[in-house]
């Protein structure tokens, strides 16, 4: 592979867009070419810097409210094309209204509960970080952390080793959230601490992504366990961790 060709392919390589054959070729070129390797590291550094530090502008709440208010109940064009009989249309409309009411109910009633838990997990994360004591048991070994937590809880939280994916397990601790004892797994990515709160929850809860005071919070449910992730890590990488955890706990 020529130097020029490697230069052209490097961006696609760093972005994970190169097909496997080309990627192997490029890796061989990188292995024997320290300049290209340095260029590759610089590109990765820049990408990480942007993801970490550039502003992500989440939509203001006022805008979301305004848009909800302006949403048309049903579009004229769509109705014409569907060509449904009148009775079916009103049935569909009724189902639509029922669905909207259900969504509204979950949106209106849940936030109170979710908002409270979000506040509690965020507070726990900040307290642990401030105190410089992110875990009660320090270990990167899942087979040490899991039994330690299980011995102190009424459930056994799934603990995954994700160091190969760049999320290093640093330990675990106990905390008290939403009126129950919960497991907290402490992960690290570069300089960022990530707390993963786990406890048994009800199924069927919607996933959630929040930003509070510069921290990203993400929640999902898997196998009757509730997972809440809190970190100052950027939301893309936090979402990566959530996806990895949810794949892992399925095993």
């Amino acid at each position, binding site marked *: 592979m020529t130097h*020029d060709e*490697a*230069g*052209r392919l*490097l*961006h*696609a390589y760093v*972005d994970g*867009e190169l097909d496997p054959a080309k990627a192997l070729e490029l890796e061989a070129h990188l292995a024997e070419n320290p300049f*290209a390797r340095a*260029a*590759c590291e*610089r*590109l990765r*550094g*820049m*990408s990480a*810097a*942007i*993801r970490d*530090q*550039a*502003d*992500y*502008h*989440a*939509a*203001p709440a*006022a*805008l*979301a409210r*305004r*848009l*909800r208010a*302006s*949403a*048309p109940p049903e*579009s004229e*064009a*769509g109705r014409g*094309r569907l060509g449904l009989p009148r009775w079916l249309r009103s049935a569909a409309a009724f189902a639509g209204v029922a669905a909207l009411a259900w969504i509204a109910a979950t949106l209106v009633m849940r936030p109170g509960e979710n908002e409270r838990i979000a506040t509690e997990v965020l507070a726990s994360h900040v307290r642990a970080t401030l105190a410089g004591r992110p875990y009660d048991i320090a270990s990167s070994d899942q087979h040490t952390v899991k039994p330690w937590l299980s011995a102190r809880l009424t459930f056994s939280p799934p603990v995954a080793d994700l160091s190969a994916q760049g999320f290093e397990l640093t330990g675990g601790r106990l905390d008290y959230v939403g009126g129950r004892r919960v497991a907290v797994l402490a992960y690290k990515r570069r300089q960022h601490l990530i707390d993963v709160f786990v406890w048994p929850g009800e199924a069927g809860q919607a996933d959630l992504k929040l930003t509070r005071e510069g921290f990203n919070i993400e929640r999902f449910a898997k196998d009757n366990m509730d997972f809440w992730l809190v970190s100052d890590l950027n939301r*893309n990488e936090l*979402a990566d961790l959530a996806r990895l955890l949810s794949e892992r706990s399925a095993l």
Partner: protein
Amino acid sequence: MPHLDAAYNLARWMTRNDHDAQDVVQEAVLRAYRFFDGLRGGGAKPWLLAIVRNSCLSWFQVNRPADLAGFDDRVVETLASEEDGPETQAMRTFDRRMLNEAIAALPAQFREVLVLRELEDMSYKEIARVADVPIGTVMSRLSRARRLLGESLRALSNAAGERVNR
């Protein structure tokens, strides 16, 4: 409403202010409701962001025609004449403010691919759909964007260094 944050983030980075970004997103979402049929495969996010991008373009035409130059290949061509290679300069000390300023100062067509790639984590294929260009163009714009950003960060951090030394 799904992808509203992504829609606002793109509009905010393109218009570079909150008020106009809100207008653009509102306009785009109304269009999206009207042309819901346009959503056929390929995911809702690139589809919505393509509409947001078009709303940005119309908004530029009316309110800030001068900024449209940032989308014009012929104009942008004169900005970076060097061969696009991997050589983004090593970045020394720069802070969050500097980085945000440097991204905001990029020509529009580079800013949009960078925001979609790094902040929205979209694939080249999805970005190509949003920006309505071939994938090869996405790739060359991204490498151009990173090179320009590296250069301007280097200039900014040198300037800051001189201020401190004086």
